[in-house]
């Protein structure tokens, strides 16, 4: 198990250079894990990403857990995941300590007021990027509008469903809709054959 220190330190390094999380991490993982160390290959990496994306939690952490597990079992998974966390956690602790001391400074306040506008634009752009893959037909469009309304106007609605409840409802709706779709599809086929 002398893999563990190397696993940990590799993921500390990856965690320190991954800006923005998610797919931004793919080229870095490719270089560190596929080219340099041959711990995995590109196909496996892509699989990890697609699964990491459709399981709860942070994609980057999910991928780290996967690779660590494959390399050295549960202990490997632990080494890789905590390794990935190490850099960002230390850095944010430093920034948080700074911010709590300088938050009242007018210059800092003006700067962050400007930055918030930029954040808004970055989120809009992320939504536009995700739109085509998520809202693919009438069902998904309606679901989008319902969930949006229930989340955005939760304060004025008579029943307030927390975000976790909305996630569960959307999952159930998705399974139901796809089962109905499949059944209708096979019925159509049966009808055509007869």
């Amino acid at each position, binding site marked *: 198990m002398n893999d563990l220190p190397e696993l940990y330190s590799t993921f500390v390094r990856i965690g320190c250079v991954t800006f923005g*999380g998610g797919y931004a991490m793919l080229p870095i993982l490719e270089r560190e894990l596929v080219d340099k160390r041959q711990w995995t290959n590109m196909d496996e990496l892509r699989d990890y990403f697609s699964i990491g994306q459709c399981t709860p939690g942070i*994609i980057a952490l999910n991928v780290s857990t996967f690779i660590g597990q494959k390399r050295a079992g549960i202990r490997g998974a632990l080494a890789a995941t905590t390794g990935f966390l190490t850099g960002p*956690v230390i850095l944010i602790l430093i920034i948080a300590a700074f911010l709590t001391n300088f938050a009242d400074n007018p210059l800092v306040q003006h700067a962050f007021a400007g930055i918030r506008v*930029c*954040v808004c634009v970055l989120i809009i752009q992320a939504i536009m990027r995700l739109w085509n*893959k998520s809202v693919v037909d009438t069902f998904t469009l309606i679901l989008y509008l319902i969930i*949006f309304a229930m989340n955005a106007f939760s304060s004025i609605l008579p029943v307030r469903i927390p975000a976790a409840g909305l996630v569960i409802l959307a*999952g159930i709706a*998705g399974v139901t809709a796809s089962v109905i779709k499949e059944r209708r599809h096979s019925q159509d086929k049966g009808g055509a054959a007869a």
Partner: protein
Amino acid sequence: MIRTLLQLIFEFAKTGLFSVGGGLATLPFLYEMSDKTGWFTHADIADMIAISESTPGAIGINMSTYAGYKTAGVAGGILASLALAAPSFVIILIIAKFLEKFRNNRYVEGAFYGLRPASIAMITAACINVAKVAVIDLDLFRTTGLFSDLIIWKALVLGVCLFLALKYTKLSPVILIAVSAVVGIIFRF
């Protein structure tokens, strides 16, 4: 103190368990947490998104560290981050055992047919929350009653410029954030 730490762990573990679809998917939970616990404000969340875009690591991790630190110091920051990571850690370990079956399961696929639009629907709602602190001035509107006072016009102009810059150039978000900070200072946002 112990109670606060336990509450931190519970809230962030819940966030880690239910946020599907990457970084921004944690936002609805963070807004809910802000309303419920008062650990951080809506403006804090917007600031943290900017800090996350300009530092390594995913927004969820950064926010848990920040909120944990604000409520319970360094130990809080570390514990909240570990709590966020814990649920998915366990889930991935289980999935890794039967990878192929999971990927090709029609129920899993079906669930994501619904989860994907739900995820961006809640991100859209979160975006409105950010806009509320960034480009809308409800307080001024309430006192003057003028619709022109509802929108912070210089912020809107900056937003449109940033949007176009992001669309037509390959400038990285970090640079745009730095530019916005400078504009914010010069024009006294």
